[in-house]
């Protein structure tokens, strides 16, 4: 995905520079939503203000919208065909591996500080427990807790620094 965006926005159309592309990548990592949307909004706004941002963002979403909308009309019918159902039984097993792989890749890239590792392990344990016990607790609650803990540690660190100065 990223290489296609870079190829079109930087190389072919010269809408943004390489540095800006790097900057967008950093922003995308720290904001919610897919990088393709982040990038489209950024480039669209830079080149055409608000209308540009809206059109670029819609443009990046419309093809996949059409494809998935068409698939959604036929998928359940297809799944009644025996061999397709069997294929999806196999595919289902691959999806777990893909999700696991995505997490492992992110672990490799993250900074390995004590607080971060602690939060990761705690979140892992809590979510696993929620699933095993079949509780209806959203992961968002866990995310908000993690953010709060991190802010609390930051504030405690700030206070300690101030006390040391005086």
């Amino acid at each position, binding site marked *: 995905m990223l290489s296609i965006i870079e190829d079109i926005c930087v190389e072919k159309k010269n809408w943004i520079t390489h540095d800006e592309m790097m900057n967008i990548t950093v922003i995308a990592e720290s904001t919610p939503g897919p990088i393709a949307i982040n990038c489209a909004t950024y480039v669209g706004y830079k080149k055409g203000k608000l209308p540009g941002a809206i059109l670029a963002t819609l443009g990046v979403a419309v093809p996949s919208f059409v494809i998935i909308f068409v698939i959604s009309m036929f998928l359940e019918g297809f799944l009644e065909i025996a*061999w397709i159902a*069997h*294929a999806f039984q196999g595919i289902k097993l691959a999806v*777990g591996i893909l999700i696991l792989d995505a997490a492992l890749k992110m672990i490799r890239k993250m900074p390995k500080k004590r607080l971060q590792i602690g939060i990761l392990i705690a979140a892992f*344990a809590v979510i696993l427990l929620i699933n095993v016990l079949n509780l209806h607790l959203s992961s968002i609650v866990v995310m908000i807790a993690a953010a709060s803990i991190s802010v609390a540690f*930051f504030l405690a660190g700030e206070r300690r620094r101030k006390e040391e100065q005086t």
Partner: protein
Amino acid sequence: MIYLDLLLGFLEVGLFSFGGAYAAIPLVRDVVLAHGWMDDEMLSYMIAVSESTPGPIMVNLATYVGSNKGGFFGAVIATTVVMLPAFLIILLIMVIAKNLLKNPYMQAILRGLKPCVIGVILATGVYMIVDNCLRKAGGGVDVVALVITGGLAVIYFGSRKIRKKGMSPIMLICVAAVVGVAVYGI
């Protein structure tokens, strides 16, 4: 009302999906399971379809669930709101708050969120793998599923030892489909 449920549900997904394509999967899963819109089985199928078609996974999932539950308008609503937070936040950063991400409080929040998201994805992956390998009726281990999952994992992770880039997710899905037809079809 289904349109309102879709709107709120996918707005939530769009607002909290920090950290790339797979970060949205546990959130979408929360929403669809809580409303009873999909089970894990169907969600797995749709993740595979999303991975094999163009466009971001979370947008694809929103379109599918929206269409399935609320027809064309459902799809439009779910797809729009799932992208809306990303759109508005980028505008916010570009127009008003250029240094928002450099704010020390914001950075502290992100330092907590990022490892948490990874833990959430990891737990979801592990749970789905284990759940797939257990028999639904009567309990016990589904040996066939366990062997296939193990085999696929060896092929997928092992391919990186042979070639640096290894096997693509789509390739793994194709292999799994062939194995599925071969094993379950007979």
